[in-house]
């Protein structure tokens, strides 16, 4: 028995511990390096920072921050409320159709807010034109209402996804037992909600962060929000320290929210996939207080899916337009696919490297930090980092959009693998360790197939998110390496709506396909994980 046979008690290592540590350091350089580089620059000029902070705080800054927090809070709370109402209703709704359709909005999980906004604006214009022809006119929608609505449809799939997971963790037998003694609403409050609230909280936090970080919809609706400030500050003067100061409260809020969900994320990962009997139907809800909100939420969900598909589809017709758009933007399409593919692959490698190290909640929280960093800061920080002496080789190359995508989204791949690895029956891993150890054959034959759903889900989640990423890519794209999203954003601001629709439809289809793979993989992974212990 050699010294190499001494076993690590964490999940298996893919290579030697040194290789894992080197991989983690590389990940930290790419994912946390941009923020660290920005912070270092700020610390180096601390006197200027304080002066600048005083100047910026004296401006309209705090009011804008408050407005953005209220907006994000309202959007995420509404999204979660609709998701909870929808899922609770479909769980006891008669017939299979609502139970199946409830999953449909998840296909739009990776569709960015500006695509929803484009679709809804396009639909609004079509309806308005139709009404004008019969002598009617819609009242104009205030910009802020429009922003709330469009961000709501954009973040709804996130809230819905976690609510569905939360409900799957509740035991129908407990619900049924409660219904013998109390009304549906009381049973929901006292029995179901306590079982699912930690998971729903994760959905709320992520929806809140997405809304807080989004400036694409507000800028289209000409509403000022805090997220735009850092971007504008940098665009005006190329002053990264000013951008950091402006985005600092946003960063702090994001970090606090991320840390707050690290423990629930870990709990979610290590809990059994679902209790025995989960998925069993619950008798029809008798209380209108559950039924009516559920039906309203169902209508919202159908609209949320139908409008982007129909509006962009109709606007992109005839098919010749779509074909010519593809031909015209071939270079952007290829750039987008290559960037997204490399980002997904690199993130999956980092996920394998990080997995055995994620043994505590603080470590998990560290991995989630990049999700809290505003995209503008990632882009600005990446410019600072990758122009440092010794690192400037990659600057202004096609690697830059990949690096900023990995910086932002690799935690998603890491979390997908973390969840999959912990959902897999631990004895399947232990059985392999008893008979073959952690060698290459075990990795190839046991670990990778068992974790494949998490790896695929991570790859396609990062792929889809990168495909639609705008802010950081806009800042670091080298000349001649524009992605499709950047092209769409430029066209939107020049008002070329006819050409935009076809491009948006392409991105929409790409995002939907990526989302579909993510969910298929995770559903398959959940089945396999359960099967092992049966």
């Amino acid at each position, binding site marked *: *028995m050699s010294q190499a*046979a001494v*076993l690590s008690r964490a999940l298996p290592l893919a290579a030697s511990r040194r290789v894992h540590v080197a991989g983690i350091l590389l990940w930290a350089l790419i994912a946390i390096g941009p923020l660290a580089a920005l912070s270092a620059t700020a610390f180096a000029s601390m006197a200027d920072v304080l002066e600048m902070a005083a100047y910026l705080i004296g401006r309209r800054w705090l009011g804008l921050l408050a407005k953005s927090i209220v907006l994000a809070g309202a959007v995420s709370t509404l999204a979660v409320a609709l998701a909870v109402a929808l899922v609770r209703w479909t769980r006891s709704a008669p017939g299979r159709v609502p139970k199946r359709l409830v999953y449909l909005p998840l296909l739009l999980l990776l569709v960015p807010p500006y695509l929803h906004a484009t679709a809804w604006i396009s639909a609004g214009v079509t309806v308005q034109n139709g009404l004008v022809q019969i002598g009617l006119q819609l009242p104009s929608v205030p910009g802020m209402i429009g922003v709330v609505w469009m961000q709501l449809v954009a973040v709804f799939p996130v809230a819905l996804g976690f609510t569905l997971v939360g409900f799957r963790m509740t035991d129908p037998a407990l619900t049924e037992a409660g219904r013998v003694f109390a009304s549906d609403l009381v049973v929901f409050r006292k029995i179901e909600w306590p079982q699912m609230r930690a998971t729903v909280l994760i959905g709320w936090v992520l929806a809140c962060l997405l809304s807080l970080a989004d400036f694409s919809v507000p800028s289209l609706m000409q509403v000022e929000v805090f997220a735009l400030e850092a971007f504008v500050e940098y665009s005006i003067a190329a002053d990264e320290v000013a951008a950091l100061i402006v985005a600092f409260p946003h960063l702090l809020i994001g970090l606090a929210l991320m840390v707050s969900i690290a423990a629930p994320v870990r709990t979610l990962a290590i809990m059994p996939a679902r209790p025995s009997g989960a998925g069993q139907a619950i008798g029809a809800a008798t209380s209108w207080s559950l039924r009516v909100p559920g039906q309203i939420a169902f209508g919202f969900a159908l609209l949320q899916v139908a409008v982007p598909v129909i509006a962009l589809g109709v606007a992109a017709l005839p098919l010749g337009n779509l074909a010519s758009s593809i031909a015209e933007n071939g270079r952007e399409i290829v750039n987008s696919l290559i960037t997204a593919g490399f980002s997904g692959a690199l993130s999956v490698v980092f996920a394998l490297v990080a997995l055995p190290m994620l043994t505590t909640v603080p470590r998990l929280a560290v991995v989630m930090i990049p999700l809290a960093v505003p995209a503008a800061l990632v882009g600005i920080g990446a410019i600072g980092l990758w122009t440092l002496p010794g690192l400037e080789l990659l600057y202004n190359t096609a690697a830059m959009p990949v690096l900023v995508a990995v910086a932002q989204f690799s935690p998603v791949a890491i979390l997908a693998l973390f969840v999959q690895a912990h959902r897999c*029956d631990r004895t*399947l891993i232990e059985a392999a360790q008893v008979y073959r150890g952690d060698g290459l*054959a075990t990795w190839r*034959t*046991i670990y990778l197939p068992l974790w494949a759903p998490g790896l695929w889900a991570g790859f396609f989640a990062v792929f889809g998110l990168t495909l639609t990423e705008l802010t950081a890519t806009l800042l670091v794209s080298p000349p001649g390496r524009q992605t499709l999203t950047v092209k769409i954003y430029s066209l939107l601001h020049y008002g070329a709506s006819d050409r935009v629709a076809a491009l948006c439809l392409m991105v929409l289809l790409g995002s939907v396909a990526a989302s579909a793979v993510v969910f298929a993989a995770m559903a398959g992974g959940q089945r396999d994980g359960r099967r*092992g212990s049966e």
Partner: protein
Amino acid sequence: MISAENISKSFGAQPVLQQLDLVLEPGEKVVLSGASGCGKTTLLRLLAGLEEPDAGRIEIDGQLVNAPGLLIAPHHRGLGVVFQQPALWPHLSVRQTLDFVASAQHQPQGSANLSDIARACGIEELLDRQPNALSGGQARRVALARALAAGPRYLLLDEPTSNLDFEARTGLNAVICDFVAETAAGLLYISHNESDVSQIGGHHVQLVGGRITKP
């Protein structure tokens, strides 16, 4: 010989094993019983190298495998383990599972030997099935076949016949006894069931208060 000396193990503030001693000779059969939660599975996992003891040392065939700061990997211990759950890899067929385990043994295991094991365990007809196409009893037989395919010097079985009817239980126990008789492997067999105790024979010990006692 497996020799565990002064083994202690706690989970948080809860002591499970306290200065436990156990010896298992090649060819010897030991049936271990005890109340639920008394630490039987923990003891098996310690011997297999899936847990580390807080104190004490474990030797297998004269080789120190567990001591403070030392943990020899499970696959270097020459063991066959059947877990409480079958723990069959869901993406591998029965044949692939047996091949995967057998190919790790640096001895001429060969397909003939695997066929013998499959026949003995009554899974010849199941070789091309996936685990999700097996009944509970079939899965347990495959789990045992996997342990035997490893060519172990010691078998550690954690309630391998739980949830099986009397006939299936008797059949599986006969396979285990035959293997031990043929290969002189040591056997540690955890069970609550009286019929298992009588069918396996050998020594019957109990785990009480974190230590091994005679019933």
